[in-house]
């Protein structure tokens, strides 16, 4: 029964799914335009942490969220986390109060012509670095969706079996 349940929720014991997305803000983080976004961060992050399948989220040093990190550009902020399955991540992103937050993204973020969200699988004990995340987004932008880096709309399954030394090495490359 436990097996059937984990199959239904897409949970894989060996691999976790990383989500990294970026946004170019329309104004400074402390501006009136961004106030609802900034006020929403703590409750939305708390919602994520309580959601089924949540594993980890990136927080900039000395803060409670990711907004201080600028790995790509001065006005690009990031969101970065690890979940145990695409289904659980999907349910949080699109089937929770987060959806209404997402609906308002045009109030806070500029429209980007390139992909701004990337997903990829990592061994369950791996916590990805920001450099790895930026490289994955650039990989998706250059090559389109693949098992290396993909999107919600064109998902890929995790590798079968447990991670081997070679796949862990490939990850570092």
């Amino acid at each position, binding site marked *: 029964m436990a097996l059937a349940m984990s199959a239904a929720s897409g949970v894989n014991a060996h691999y976790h799914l990383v989500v990294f997305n970026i946004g170019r803000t329309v104004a400074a983080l402390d501006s009136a335009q961004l106030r609802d976004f900034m006020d929403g961060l703590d409750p939305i992050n708390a919602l994520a942490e309580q959601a089924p399948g949540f594993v980890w989220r990136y927080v900039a040093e000395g803060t409670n969220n990711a907004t201080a990190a600028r790995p790509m550009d001065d006005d690009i902020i990031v969101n970065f986390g690890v979940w145990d399955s695409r289904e659980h991540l999907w349910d949080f*992103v*699109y*089937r929770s109060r987060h959806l209404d937050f997402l*609906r308002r993204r*045009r109030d806070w973020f500029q429209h980007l*012509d390139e992909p701004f969200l990337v997903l990829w699988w990592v061994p369950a004990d791996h916590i990805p670095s920001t450099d790895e995340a930026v490289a994955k987004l650039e990989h998706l932008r250059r090559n389109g969706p693949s098992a290396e880096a993909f999107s919600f709309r064109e998902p890929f399954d995790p590798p079968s079996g447990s991670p081997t030394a070679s796949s862990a090495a490939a990850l570092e490359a």
Partner: protein
Amino acid sequence: MQDLEAIALLQDSARRSLYEYVIAAGHEVSRNEAAAAVGLQRTLAAFHLDRLAGAGLLEVAYRRLSSRSGPGAGRPAKLYRRAAIERAVAVPPREYAQAANVLAAAIERAGAEAVLYDAAREEGIALGRAIARPGDGGAISELARQLTERGYEPYTDGATVRLRNCPFHSVAQQFPVVACGMNLALLDGMLAGAELAEGHEARLQPRPGECCVALISKTNTD
């Protein structure tokens, strides 16, 4: 052809009553419950329910209804619920779902969600006006009736109206923000057009397996 054959099964009035009862129930339905609800003999109801399941219109689950277990607990009951799969027949052939996906992709690529939401709200207002009575506005029950006709399968949860079915399900799976935002604006417009916006507001409150929009009562704090 599978879709046509499945839908043709609903031509039989007993089968259609059973199907409509199961999809509106909001829980898995036993043969006894379904038979009693539509006034059919149990074996006949079971026959029709299995035909509907065989055609993929309903799904089957087995569960013990009593809390007893072990010898003497009896066999698990056969329960029915609406199938997740969509069936559609259009004559002559139409591919609106595909068109909707392409349009949604274009809106997302252009970042034109705000324009879409405005257009959806205007459409909703026009639909809602048909419900509004001169002077005192419409009634939420009349709006719920309209939503039933449009396939939302509304039900009341306290003073809140929730929607069991998403009429835009396939595009909402592909483009959730675009489709759910459009749906929210459409229903918000319907409330405004029906002059019901003082009592209820449309809000995104996604729940698994349901439409993402709920019409929340402004007077009751639930």
